[in-house]
């Protein structure tokens, strides 16, 4: 595959799904050109339903369609899916466990120029709090195709967040993809970087940078935020000095929250969160500059990883010191 926006891959994979399963229908809220559901519309116009600019009605109609055995995919921007349609997803889809897929594009600040109103930086924390919901955010074209096929094969509600900008190819076609299982992209036992979406590429850049300093970073692509891969996190917590989470999302309640919650129960370790620091971003003409401006990039990950190393070493020094004191006593 070639570098391209994950939303484009989604649109193409939807057509693929449509070819195989006549029960797949697509609902859209007037941004088909952007979400790429237009690809499905062109191939299967009779199975494509516009809701117009009415996101709550879109997801509730999808719930009703699903109740008759259809398999609806709904798309809009992450900000509208997670907030305007929030209660519909919660009460009409998650509660009755209906087989509806919400695939939201423009997650994070990637829709840079439009500014805060169109930047979805709370969606993962909101969606993560809903029972029965599986939450995904694939990072590249390869995993986006696999994730789209995997959620279609899974019988239950799913929220999948996609990006806007061109995404580099980070994964191999022949690599295994399983819902709820992180994919290691790089080995390392000093620090673990857990990331989703566009931050996975940044994590790899950061890991290469850290390598120059002699810090070996493990990079984990956390394409499924819920359910979180406890096994991979346990190993990361036990085998490294600490974890850095990286997400194009508010640091409150998203991946950082999910990882901290998970490890604190049985293998507490240092967790440093890279993301939008509980503030609103702004417009920006270049999304890479915008990510850098708000410290959501490889540089921020490098500095967080260094912080983990330092904090771990000083904790070690304190522990060794107190052990020495104990011995003297």
């Amino acid at each position: 595959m070639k570098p391209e926006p994950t939303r484009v891959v989604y649109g193409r994979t939807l057509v693929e799904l449509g070819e195989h399963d006549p029960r797949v229908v697509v609902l859209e809220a007037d941004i088909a050109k952007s979400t790429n559901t237009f690809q499905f519309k062109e191939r299967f116009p009779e199975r494509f339903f516009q809701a117009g600019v009415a996101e709550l009605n879109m997801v509730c109609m999808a719930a009703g369609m699903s109740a008759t055995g259809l398999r609806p995919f709904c798309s809009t921007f992450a900000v509208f899916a997670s907030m305007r349609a929030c209660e519909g997803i919660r009460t009409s889809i998650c509660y009755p466990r209906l087989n509806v897929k919400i695939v939201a594009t423009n997650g994070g600040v990637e829709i840079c120029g439009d500014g805060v109103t169109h930047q979805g930086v709370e969606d993962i924390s909101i969606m993560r709090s809903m029972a029965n919901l599986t939450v995904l955010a694939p990072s590249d074209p390869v995993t986006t195709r696999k994730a789209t096929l995997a959620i279609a094969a899974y019988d239950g509600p799913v929220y999948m967040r996609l990006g806007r900008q061109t995404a580099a190819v980070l994964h191999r076609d022949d690599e295994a993809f399983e819902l709820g299982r992180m994919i290691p992209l790089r080995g390392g036992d000093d620090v673990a970087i857990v990331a989703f979406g566009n931050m996975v590429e940044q994590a790899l850049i950061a890991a290469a940078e850290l390598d120059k300093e002699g810090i070996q970073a493990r990079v984990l692509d956390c394409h499924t935020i819920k359910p979180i891969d406890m096994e991979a996190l346990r190993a990361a917590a036990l085998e490294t000095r600490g974890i850095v989470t990286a997400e194009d999302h508010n640091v409150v309640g998203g991946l950082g929250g999910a990882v901290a919650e998970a490890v604190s129960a049985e293998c507490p370790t240092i967790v440093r969160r890279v993301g939008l620091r509980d503030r609103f971003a702004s417009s920006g003409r270049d999304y890479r500059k915008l990510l850098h401006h708000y410290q959501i990039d490889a540089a921020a990950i490098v500095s967080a990883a260094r912080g983990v190393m330092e904090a771990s070493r000083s904790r070690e020094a304190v522990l060794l010191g107190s052990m020495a004191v104990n011995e003297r006593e």
Partner: protein
Amino acid sequence: MTAWSSEDAARLRTMARELRADIIKMIAEAGSGHPGGSLSAIDIVTYLYFHRMRVDPANPEWEDRDRFVLSKGHCSPAPYVALARRGYFAREVLWTLRDIGSPLQGHPDMRKTPGIDMTTGSLGQGFSCATGIALAGKFQRKDFRVYALLGDGEMQEGVVWEAAMAAAHYRLDNLVAIVDNNKLQTDGATAAIMGIEPLEDKFRAFGWETRRIDGHDFDAIHDACERAMEHGGKPHAIVADTVKGKGIREMEGDHHWHGMPPTAEQAERFLKELSTEVTA
């Protein structure tokens, strides 16, 4: 066309009185619930389940069945008593309403209760889901009908009008929206809280066939539903003028009975009132 005679109306009137008694009994037993709107809706619900809808209690998931969506989900006792009477589950189950482990949740749950076609309770969303079911029916070229029952206070929710717009846009003449217009909501008179009239004009402006009836007159309910069987390319709205708490003199027209259960003593009195009318 379904056959209709004065005997049908009389039979349904008697049945609705008995179902009213079950509603009072189950809400009193539960210690919480919404009697006022359940009683204003029960004549319509009785008509739908005992004369109109093609359903099969032995096969609640029958894919060609007509659907009933209680968008005003807080009045769940109304469909619950009808479903029990139609044999979807035993009548004894009614007395478990709202208890831990009961299949009868405070608001309808399609996964727990046989015969409930959609999980509802957050106002407006059920209507939107019903629109989706009707849209799926059209798309799959099935000839089932979808009956959505809404409250008048519910008409204040924005998503109701999003759904109304979509239903007309997709020419869902298999969708019938019935507004249980009892004119009272939790905090008082609907007209005083946030006026919703003129409802027929609103629906008509959104592209719906509309008519207004007395929601306690079985002949009128039948006539309106019969006309709603016509496939004219438009969805059908029936504004049913009703009385909140209908059938219990003490409750009628008093908004305090929106979400208040009767005490054991009141329930006994109300049940007596209903049984006296049955024998009268």
